[in-house]
């Protein structure tokens, strides 16, 4: 799946907005928080599909050039994936609405709540690092695809200067 920069930017911003909403359960309430969490799993899969080529490339050449920026990106992204998987799994384990909707009753240990909190905190930290590592890309593309088009809407249009044209009389013709 080859995605343009614009598509990647839209996907990134959408996932970021979804993350903010999911990580604020007080905003949505518990039921929506749980279902959004399930949907976020699908969003992560989509994100990985869009970056599949890069993913395969870096995975196969991971140890060839270990100390490079893309390896750091890869490590951060991998940790983020692990943290989100742990958060989703623990969220499902402690969920009340999703599991009861599916007709599953779980008698789980309280450790899952701790794991859910730890994984959520870790994913926030990793998201911050991910942002910092892609800062230049983000700034450039937000400027190019969001700020510039918005600015051009509010910018007054330049009027073409009126040039006086000499009138031609029938005699001159």
């Amino acid at each position, binding site marked *: 799946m080859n995605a343009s920069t614009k598509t990647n930017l839209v996907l990134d911003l959408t996932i970021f907005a979804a993350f903010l909403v999911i990580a604020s359960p007080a905003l949505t309430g*518990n039921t929506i928080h749980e279902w959004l969490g399930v949907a976020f799993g699908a969003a992560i899969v989509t994100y990985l599909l869009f970056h599949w080529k890069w993913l395969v490339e870096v995975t196969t050449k991971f140890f060839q050039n270990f100390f490079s920026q893309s390896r750091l990106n890869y490590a951060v992204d991998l940790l983020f994936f692990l943290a989100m998987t742990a958060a989703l*799994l623990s969220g499902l384990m402690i969920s009340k609405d999703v599991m009861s909707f599916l007709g599953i009753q*779980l008698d789980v240990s*309280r450790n899952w709540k701790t794991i859910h909190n730890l994984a959520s905190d870790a994913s926030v930290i990793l998201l911050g690092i991910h942002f910092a590592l892609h*800062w230049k890309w983000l700034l450039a593309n937000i400027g190019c695809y969001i700020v510039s088009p918005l600015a051009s809407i509010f910018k007054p249009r330049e009027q073409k200067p009126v040039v006086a044209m000499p009138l031609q009389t029938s005699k001159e013709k």
Partner: protein
Amino acid sequence: MKVILRILVILLVATVVSSGVYALVENTSLVSSNEAERGAPPQMTDTDDASFQPMERPADGDEHGASLSRGVGEMGVLLAKISGITIIVLLVQKAAALLQNKKLKTV
């Protein structure tokens, strides 16, 4: 077909990770025994259960309810945390680049 295979690979990796987390959590004790005794595990009671009693939601929202003011505040804190971490990492990167430049100049 290719995309379906890729999705399956991603789900497989997620399953492996989930199994690891599950094994880790179920075989280790993260909460002290006293704490575990105090708090009962989450119960998945059915709505038709006789013991189920619906709780009245306070106006400002409760633990499980939505509250716009609390939610926006929570989101603001979250944004501040992410921004803080981003700024710290950017500063560290800048400092590392400066140190590297200094080293190159001295050599």
